[in-house]
């Protein structure tokens, strides 16, 4: 057999599919949407090649409900979409959260509101991180900032989904989805053992999956249980990369493609004598509150939230540091990615003479 290598050039979107298959994902259900479509393209090719399920659903709503069904059947399963497509899926996500089923949803964000455009934005933050559907539920949100992480965090997403029995998002922007990088593929995982709660023929018990609790007492109990789970997740699952934070006086906070721009901008600003680092959240729920707090306690004078939205993450930063330090917004909207030059220039303007925007 020809010698194989785990080093490969892949688009971010394709890396999601590789990660899913390596994690033992059994089924993909999706509806085409730019800039997430490569996930469906690669899935259509690769899932059937391994005898696994791929369905191009009739709509976003069908695809999330197929995910609900496959998850209830105890299958590792996923879907992917963007912006408006995620809006359509929200009812289904609420059902999956309410029924405590594991699944993975990749959201490759595009410009909004409305039809918006197909350029990269980060404006699904609120509808994903805050739980865009009805009811008091949360989802774990992982935020890959590279093609390697698109693969690895997708694999992690399946594990977290199983561990906590809840939907886990892989949330990034169209540019991380479309760009190609070298990555090292992790080893494939064995098929996960069937869970006792699943509607699976191997289980002897007759199981029922539902999110209906007619008695307010029972529904309150569910909500209490869910929120206990969310508190546990906040305590155990915060992830963030700290870049040049050891001696930093200022900190960028950014995820996805803007974190890549901010990383280079930080290097340039440091070369000019401004001690700036970056906190890059890899989980948006749970938000890396501990890293933020610690940075504030260590004397960070100002946080700069570099975002491609109207400032959705900035509120979480302020809450995390309890507004003890000024937080400013360095953002672009409408599908514009802030360039390194622009970040450098605006950061300089904001540092010092800033007010808490």
């Amino acid at each position, binding site marked *: *057999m020809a*010698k*194989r*290598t785990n080093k*490969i*050039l892949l688009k971010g979107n394709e890396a999601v599919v590789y990660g899913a298959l*390596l994690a033992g994902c*059994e*089924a993909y259900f999706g509806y085409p949407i730019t800039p997430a479509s490569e996930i469906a393209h690669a899935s259509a090719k*690769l899932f059937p090649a*391994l*005898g*696994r*399920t791929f*369905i191009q*659903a*009739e709509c976003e*709503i*069908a695809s999330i*409900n197929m*995910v*609900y*069904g*496959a998850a209830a*059947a105890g*299958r590792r*399963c996923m879907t992917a979409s963007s912006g408006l497509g995620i809006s359509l899926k929200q*009812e*289904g996500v609420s*059902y999956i959260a309410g*029924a405590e089923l594991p699944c993975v949803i990749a959201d490759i964000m595009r410009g909004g509101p409305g039809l918006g455009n197909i*350029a*990269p934005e980060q404006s699904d933050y609120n509808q994903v991180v805050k739980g865009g559907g009805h009811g008091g539920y949360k989802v774990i949100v992982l935020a890959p900032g*590279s093609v390697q992480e698109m693969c690895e965090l997708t694999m992690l997403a399946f594990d977290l989904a199983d561990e906590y029995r809840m939907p886990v998002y892989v949330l990034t922007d169209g*540019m991380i989805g479309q*760009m*190609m*990088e*070298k990555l090292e*593929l992790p*080893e*494939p995982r*064995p*098929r996960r053992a069937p869970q006792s709660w699943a*509607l*699976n*023929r191997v289980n002897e018990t*007759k199981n*029922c*999956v*539902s*999110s*209906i609790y007619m*008695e307010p007492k029972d529904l309150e109990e569910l909500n209490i249980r869910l929120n206990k789970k969310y508190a546990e997740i906040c305590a155990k699952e915060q992830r963030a990369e700290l870049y040049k934070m050891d001696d930093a006086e200022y900190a960028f906070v950014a995820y996805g*493609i803007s974190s890549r*721009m901010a*990383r280079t901008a930080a290097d340039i600003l440091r070369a000019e004598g401004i001690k700036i680092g970056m906190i890059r959240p890899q989980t948006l729920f749970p938000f890396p509150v501990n890293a933020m707090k610690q940075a504030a306690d260590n004397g960070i004078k100002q946080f700069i939230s570099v975002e491609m939205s109207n400032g959705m993450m900035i509120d979480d930063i302020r809450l995390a540091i309890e507004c003890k330090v000024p937080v400013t917004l360095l953002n672009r909207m409408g599908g*514009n990615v802030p*360039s*390194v030059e622009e970040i450098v220039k605006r950061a300089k303007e904001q540092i010092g003479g800033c007010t808490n925007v």
Partner: protein
Amino acid sequence: MSEIVKFSRPAGFFPKFERRPGPNKTNMHYCPGCGHGILHKLIAEAIADMGIKDRAVIVCPVGCSVFAYYYFDCHSVECAHGRAPAVATAFSRTDPENVVIGYQGDGDLASIGFNHILQAANRGENMVVFFVNNAIYGMTGGQMAPTTLVGQKTVTSPNGRTILDSGYPIKVAEMIAQFEAPVYVERCALSSVKNIMTARRAVRKAIQNTIDKKGFSFVEFLSGCPINLKMKAKEMNEFLDTKMSQYYPLGLKKDVSAEREAIVRAEPIYDADKVKELLFPVETERAVDDDFQYKSEVFDQERSVKICGFGGQGVLSLGHVIATVGKLRNFNVSWLPSYGPEMRGGTANCSIVFSRGPIGSPQADFNCSMMVCLNQPSVDKFLGQLAEGGVLIYDTSTITLPELSADKTVYGINAGEIAEQLGDLRVANSVILGLIARMMQDCFMNEDEKADVDCAMIESLKENYGKKPAVLELNIKAYNIGKTADIVCKGARVSK
């Protein structure tokens, strides 16, 4: 009608309805005279008699039968309003041995979730859907359904349904029957004993089709809702047997189950070696090992490359070949296609970044170490992004260069004309690749590393075009000409 059936509590029901909250664990929640109880009984009986309790999955809707899972002694799932066919599809596809039984009412199936039932039917999913048509919304309190008859009064059609406002009632069974994929479609009525016996046979026939993996079976049941239709039990049955049956004719709409083959689906593969065989690429033969690094100081810092030209000039694929070189020589490397407004209007560009460490911005939008321009507009638009001491590579056949500052280095070649002579304009990008190799050897590489530049470029061409030998051969030819043809070269690095 010779079969004698003794109705008793079917073994397909739980002995006690433990899933039902509250103290009442023995009775159903349905109103007196409701058809759901009858149909539940027919299904439960069939599940037990046919021996499929362990592999049946009941997919419950929203509506009065939302609580169907209280009763059936098998796996059950409760779905969002109208989405049962999508949920059922997943059960059927991910385990073909499941006997998937969808159960839906008229609002659920024919209104809010109509697309899903039509699409599942049209895909020919291996499942049965039992559709209860009682011409009214029961659970929400007697509103008009998509199947409410013309003239029928409901709380949202207080003066009777009009065609002008609400159109005609939808004949679902007939619609499903006209699709190619479904194997069996019938309409029954849960009214007289005779009709119920027919319904009983239809239930079994449809479930048998699913067990036999014949595909999509659909049975519509005209059913009573005496509470919301404000009728006594006897009037209810008369309504079903006259007005309803008149508009919704009973009987078989389609049955091709005998001539259809069983659906066969592939067994999923999880074997690690087979997964790797699919996902892990065959390694390109390389002249270097995994720990090889160029010593030339040019690579001591992150390097960004921008390639720009018209769409169709092979801009993106040249970028891909260069990125592959980076991968083959153990760099971290990113490749970013032009993304945004500039991808409209026929221009294309891409950025490649090489680095020994983690890559920051993947966009070569300023401080470009090397820029490749294949058309005049690219020069005009992007030249300002070339870093101090940067290198410009350009196609002399189409571009007139402006005056450049002394720190820059310029390499030009008549790539368009060379490619044309080779008979394929698309290989102009490999001519350019040859020029880049030459420039790297001339200006940046240590003496003992010059030969490897060639090696790496050829390896990359093989990795990118190796699947099409003729294409590979032509590109290597173009590359070699790019390395030897007459060129323009001037500027800082050259004069050194």
